[in-house]
């Protein structure tokens, strides 16, 4: 075997702490190495040409590149080797950047380690064999989890491109938080007016299978070939029979026991309900926690009044499996609630704002419902405690956000804008009202955003006070807001009629559980994590699973929509070809050695191991052995480590190769 070694300086990234020329010289003396060179940028075109030229000139059949992590440029170098006519799997990377230069300071020691790692890779490549990529078919269907604006946008984009979509939403209706909003910044157009046409489009789309009141139970398989189990929760209403007439809801005797989730607890709903009038689908569900029938079996009013006989109290949750090739996660956010002290949480909460004991201290979404024409006050500004019109409202930004000592260290990003919008909406309806905003900084980056905030201040006369609020307390029906004006350097006291807290956007409480179910990483706040923050912002590190919207980080509607479209495009990239190429580094069973104990089958996380019958010429069964399904195997190596007879090997990482690498170090 003739091996070529190519050491990259990565500009100064490696060159600063590793003497690359010395590494190249040392490598030249390794057995089988016939060519060794260093270059400032191996990944550049000229750099790649050096490799290609050397392969031709020296008839190389093994290549080691000492460079950055294989995550970055393994593909590049393998492509170069392949272009030069050598099997790409005969090219190995020695990681001299992440494993050496970026983590060490002493040049002498780092250079020694770099030489070791190159020797290590040379020993491996000597034992490499040519491999060909595995091709697997792609299921051209997409699962979208979450039916808010992000999920809706992603589903519509994929479906409009002609691919089938399964849209799963855990609430009874799609629409998400956007359907709760009054008007949207910076244009002040009505949120529902722009959203509901999209919701209807989803409902009517022939390519979209909509499953509301449903949750993803489990996900198996891999990119291009997922098997998803979805739990359809019992609605107790037959969706095919129900006409959505609403009689059941009118007749339901439970009227004041359940708070409306849609109205953010500012109004009540019946036990059988649709969340809001424009709900899609317009099919009610029964909330069994308050329904009298489910409590003591006494009432069945809804069943009696239903002309269509659509109500079935004995309906059960159903498990449905779907095959999909791509998954788009768009599960959205929640608002941090101050209404109780969070237990066993790092978040300490805001006792100084009363933990929700004051009825007129509300959060942003509650204000949206009060401002909304479809809300509990029909869009008139009335405060929750006594229904009076508030003449003075104080808005407090950054409650929970940017507050490491009490809340979360991140910025929730949308609050500066929606607070300006809130204050503006209020001033537009209550002309003699006063609006105060306590802020830390105004972060209004975005098209027409800064202008919007200026408009609130200059045209609508909203008073902005830079500073934090230290306490809110009630005195004679007023809420005394004590804070500091840090620009004037004076303490401020405002006697407000209502206080609106711009509480932080937080991940859905079940986000981390879902992430574990589908196998994607999440951060300490419960937000899902992308592969690369700049270059691959909508892909999770699990192939074929994409992220859209506020489940990734706090973001506003335009950003959610763009991210959703990007995720949809990424899914469609997968569907662009009929077969997916996969790395051939999968497990392979030596059938002569295999004793058929099938321990490997038990430990395999991907159900990739099957039982194969070995028969003689006349068809008699001799023995049964394990057999690895190339399409399912992820190359994790668990079977390899488990097999008592060492008859499973991971191609590309055989025991022989690994041992050779290790012994090269000593």
């Amino acid at each position, binding site marked *: 075997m003739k091996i070529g070694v190519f050491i990259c300086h990565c500009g100064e990234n490696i060159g600063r702490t590793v003497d690359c020329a010395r590494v190249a010289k040392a490598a030249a003396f390794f057995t089988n190495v016939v060519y060794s060179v260093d270059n400032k940028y191996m990944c550049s075109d000229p750099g790649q040409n050096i490799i290609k030229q050397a392969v031709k000139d020296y008839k190389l059949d093994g290549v080691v590149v000492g460079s950055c992590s294989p995550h970055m440029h393994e593909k590049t170098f393998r492509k170069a080797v392949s272009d030069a006519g050598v099997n790409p799997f005969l090219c190995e990377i020695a990681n001299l950047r992440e494993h050496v230069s970026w983590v060490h300071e002493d040049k002498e020691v780092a250079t020694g380690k770099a030489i070791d790692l190159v020797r290590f890779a040379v020993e491996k490549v000597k034992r490499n064999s040519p491999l060909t990529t595995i091709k697997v078919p792609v299921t051209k269907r997409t699962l979208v989890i979450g039916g808010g604006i992000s999920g809706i946008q992603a589903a519509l984009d994929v479906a409009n491109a002609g691919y089938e979509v399964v849209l799963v939403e855990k609430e009874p209706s799609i629409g998400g938080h956007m359907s709760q909003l009054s008007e949207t910044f910076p244009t002040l157009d009505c949120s529902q007016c722009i959203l509901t046409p999209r919701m209807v489009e989803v409902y009517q789309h022939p390519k979209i299978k909509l499953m509301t009141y449903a949750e993803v139970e489990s996900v198996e398989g891999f990119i291009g070939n997922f098997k998803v189990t979805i739990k359809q929760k019992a609605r107790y209403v037959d969706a095919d029979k129900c006409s959505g007439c609403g009689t059941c809801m009118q007749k339901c005797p439970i009227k004041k026991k359940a708070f409306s989730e849609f109205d953010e607890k500012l109004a009540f709903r019946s036990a059988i309900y649709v969340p809001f009038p424009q709900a899609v689908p317009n099919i009610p569900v029964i909330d069994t926690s308050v329904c009298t029938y489910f409590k003591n079996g006494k009432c069945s009013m809804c069943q009696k009044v239903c002309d269509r006989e659509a109500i079935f109290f004995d309906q059960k949750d159903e498990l449905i499996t779907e095959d999909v090739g791509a998954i788009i996660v768009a599960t959205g956010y929640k608002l941090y609630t101050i209404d109780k002290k969070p237990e066993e949480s790092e978040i300490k909460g805001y006792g100084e704002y009363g933990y929700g004991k004051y009825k007129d201290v509300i959060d942003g979404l509650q204000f949206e419902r009060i401002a909304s024409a479809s809300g509990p006050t029909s869009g008139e500004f009335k405060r929750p405690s006594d229904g009076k019109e508030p003449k003075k409202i104080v808005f407090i930004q950054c409650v929970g956000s940017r507050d490491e000592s009490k809340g979360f260290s991140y910025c929730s990003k949308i609050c500066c804008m929606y607070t300006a919008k809130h204050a503006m909406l209020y001033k537009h309806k209550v002309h003699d009202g006063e609006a105060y905003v306590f802020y830390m900084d105004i972060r209004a980056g975005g098209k027409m955003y800064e202008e919007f905030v200026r408009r609130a201040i200059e045209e609508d006369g909203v008073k902005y006070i830079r500073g934090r609020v230290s*306490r809110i307390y009630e005195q004679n029906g007023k809420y005394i807001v004590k804070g500091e004006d840090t620009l004037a350097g004076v303490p401020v006291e405002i006697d407000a009629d209502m206080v609106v807290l711009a509480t932080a956007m937080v991940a859905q409480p079940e986000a981390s559980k879902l992430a574990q179910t589908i196998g994607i990483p999440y951060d300490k706040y419960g937000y899902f994590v992308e592969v690369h923050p700049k270059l691959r912002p909508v892909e999770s590190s699990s192939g074929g699973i994409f992220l859209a919207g506020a489940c990734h980080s706090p973001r506003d509607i335009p950003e959610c929509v763009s991210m959703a479209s990007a995720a949809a495009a990424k899914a469609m990239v997968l569907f662009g070809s009929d077969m997916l190429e996969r790395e051939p580094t999968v497990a392979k069973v030596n059938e002569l050695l295999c004793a058929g104990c099938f321990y490997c089958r038990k430990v395999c996380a991907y159900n990739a191991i099957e039982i194969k019958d070995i028969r003689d010429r006349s068809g008699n069964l001799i023995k049964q052995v394990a057999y690895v399904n190339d399409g399912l195997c992820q190359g994790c190596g668990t079977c390899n480590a488990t097999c008592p007879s060492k008859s499973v090997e991971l191609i590309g990482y055989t025991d022989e190769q690994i041992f050779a690498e290790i012994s090269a170090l000593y």
Partner: protein
Amino acid sequence: MQIGYYPGCSQTGTAKEYDKSLRLVMNKLSAGILELNDWSCCGATSAHVTSHRLSLALSGRNLALAEKQGFKEMLAPCAACYNRLLISQHELNNSPKVKADIEEIVDCKIKGDTEIINIIQLFQKIGKEKISENIKNDLSILKAACYYGCLLVRPHDITHFDDAEEPVSMEELVKTVGAETVNWNFKTECCGAAHSVARKEIVVNLSKKIIEDARTHGANVIIVACPMCHTNLDMRQRAMKREYKDHSEMPVLYLPELIGLAMGFDNKQLGIDLHTVKFKFPELVKKSEEITV
């Protein structure tokens, strides 16, 4: 259970009755507290505004004494002592450098494992049941505003005790002994603290606000767990009367005094007679009111 007792200076002076009632109540509960032998200043106010190192060393000495005398737990009924001891312990435990320095000054090793507890934690440890068993008098006529002040619950990261902004632990104890509690706004509002000496007018105004908020929310007594708070809220009511002509008196009791009243001790036994604002059960007044209605 033998708990160490660190009285602190106020317990021997302005807050004598705090000490008196505490010992009486603890005796009744047959729960032992043993005064720390040879204790010295905790390093509050005058020390820690002058020299941080001095305040650490002063508390450090007391911590070392507690360890030497074998106390696993030590009660500091004064909120400032509690705060200083706890903060010093925290700083020593979190910096080997500071610890070495202080150990050298006090010429003693400090392990830093004595649990420093405040008066509320003390009664929590004794337990509601044991306290209830000893209750004789019905205190339901009392509508108590529990005042925590600033030091008892802060900083939360070090005290790890109750909520810093909306504490509730004292209310639970007060309810246990049969008094009612009121929901009010100024549980942790500043009373003016040591400004009482040099800038009396500040204290008078701040403390007046606290008293009036308690009153508007229906309180007929304020319960405190800090000698400084007591001085400002009780003693300064005389000055309040001069400042605000219509000021009507509001009795201020230490937590163990209230518990003592429930146990059947009288004002004199508990030292309540030493207060500026005389405490009388509002019972009679209320009953006669009811009769006239």
